């Protein structure tokens, strides 16, 4: 507990007020309004309002476009998180050695973190351009694959998954590396003497010891995959071809700001809120239960 200062009554409130006012006006009120509008059919200027009860939600879950987008977003998120974390853990395990230049590697690996998803999209779209892209040409010459994310739905999905995984790769590797550096070498040596094979050492010693890192990355990557893809999608695929890469946030944007279905878009916001709340709850619960934080 810190020693507190005596002050006039209003000083603490004065110091808190900028944050509190911003939070109230731009977070609390609009979120409440999202909930409110989700029960109405209205236009974006708010001049015409018709109460429809749960009509928007019923419509949402009868809308195959929305159901598909929901399913697609979950699939995308799971793949991005699982692939991203496994690949980077694998790389980190191999690289985890008392290395010279470790700091140089670490510094360079983090660079894509500073790159915006939209800029990433522009560069990747060129690399994979079906006719003049350098990577699509390599794919064609080495494997005979004509990779075309512009016309082919599954190629488009693979494309955004790979681009999304790539953007977080360096970030994830760095965190796994620093987690692995905290695993005491004596522990591994003792396990080797006791005859534990590499898989057992990984499964029963390393994995539990790095669980705080894994858990942190799990949450970060999930939120990233769910909420940070708009720029990439808008620049590269615009949800297409067809609706092949129409993820939830993109669908929300289309309904809210292209078709101007304000109430319908608000209902989608509320579904997103429930998803974030679920992720947060999971974060709190499993942080207590299964994560080993050391002694």
């Amino acid at each position, binding site marked *: *507990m*810190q*020693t507190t*200062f005596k*002050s006039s009554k209003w*000083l*603490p409130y004065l110091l*808190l007020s*900028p*944050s509190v006012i*911003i939070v*109230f*006006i*731009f*977070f609390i*009120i*609009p*979120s409440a309004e999202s909930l409110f509008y989700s029960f109405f059919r209205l236009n974006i200027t*708010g001049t015409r309002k018709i109460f429809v009860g749960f009509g928007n939600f019923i419509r949402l879950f009868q809308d195959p476009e929305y159901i598909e987008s929901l399913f697609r977003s979950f699939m995308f998120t799971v793949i991005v998180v699982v692939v991203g974390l496994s690949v980077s853990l694998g790389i980190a395990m*191999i*690289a985890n*050695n008392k*290395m010279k*230049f470790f700091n140089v*590697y670490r*510094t360079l690996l*983090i*660079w894509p973190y*500073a*790159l*915006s998803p*939209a*800029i990433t999209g*522009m*560069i*990747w779209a*060129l690399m994979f351009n079906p006719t*003049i892209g*350098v990577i699509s040409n390599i794919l064609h010459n080495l494997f005979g694959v004509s990779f075309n994310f512009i016309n082919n739905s599954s190629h488009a999905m693979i494309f955004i998954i790979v681009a999304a995984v*790539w953007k977080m*790769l*360096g*970030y994830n*590797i760095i*965190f796994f590396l620093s987690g692995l550096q905290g695993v005491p070498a004596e522990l591994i040596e003792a396990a080797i003497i006791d005859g534990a094979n590499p898989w057992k050492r990984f499964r029963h010693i390393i994995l539990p010891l790095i669980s705080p890192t894994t858990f942190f990355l799990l949450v*970060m990557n999930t*939120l*990233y995959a769910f*909420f940070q893809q*708009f*720029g990439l999608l808008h*620049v590269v695929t615009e949800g297409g071809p067809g609706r092949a890469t129409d993820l*939830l*946030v993109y669908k929300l944007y289309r309904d809210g*700001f292209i078709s101007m279905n*304000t109430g319908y*878009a608000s209902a989608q916001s509320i579904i*997103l*809120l429930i998803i974030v709340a679920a992720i*947060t709850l999971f974060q709190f619960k499993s942080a207590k239960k299964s994560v080993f934080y050391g002694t």
Partner: protein
Amino acid sequence: MELKIMNNRKLLKNISSHLIMLIVLLVVLFPMIYAIVVSTQTNSEYYKFPPNMRPGTGAVENYIDAWQKGDLGRLLFNSTFISLFVALGKIILSILAGFTFVYFKSKGKIFFFIMILITQMLPLPVRIVPTYMLMSQFGWVNTYWALTIPFFASATGTLLFRQLYMMIPTSFADAAKVDGVNSLQFLWYIVIPLSKTNIAALFLIEFIFIWNQYLWPLIVGNSREVRVVQIGLKQLIDTDAAVSWNVLMSGTVLAMIPPLIILVIFQSSLIKGLALGQDK
């Protein structure tokens, strides 16, 4: 003899680790290198088949072309100004809040604390339509206000400074009180100088976070005066069919530079800062 084998093995492991790291680095950095290479090629160098990775001779024209057609001076100024302004705003507001939560007893403290934390659960897509409507009521659409003020509060920052201030030895505040230093003087002369690393970390995260925003500027920042660089480049793709890939890549390279500079400058606080996570 055995020692030698051990050493050899160690050496082999070392070499293979470095090799793997170099391959990983190539994969991670390749898109950036590619963008730079293409941005130097002239049209005829670029459209040669098969695609090549040779640096070309058109760099100067491409960058001038991108700068003029894409209005990049204005775009980069807007992005930089907005990111700086928001990062500074967030730092000031969260220092004030963190300091208050630790160094004052006041009614309703917990309530306000929870209120600020809850913003973590309310990313933009959750409240985007009403926030947009609010902006048009305020007359803020297509102004810097809409792109900056709504982002000033920071749960990440408030938590970060609160945590730091709880770890400052209590003797500091005790001594200050004995010497008759008031709370604001204590904040200014003692607490803020102790916060340097955290300020750097928060600055790094928030600058990059705001720079990389896309959805919000797309909706509320669509005039030349306030447009940010990603949106400007996307428009260049959409509207100007004459813009070729190499010119566009010059634009992306220019758009990469400012956040990279910030990243390089504040590297020392990097891991600490990143561990705090991404804001929303």
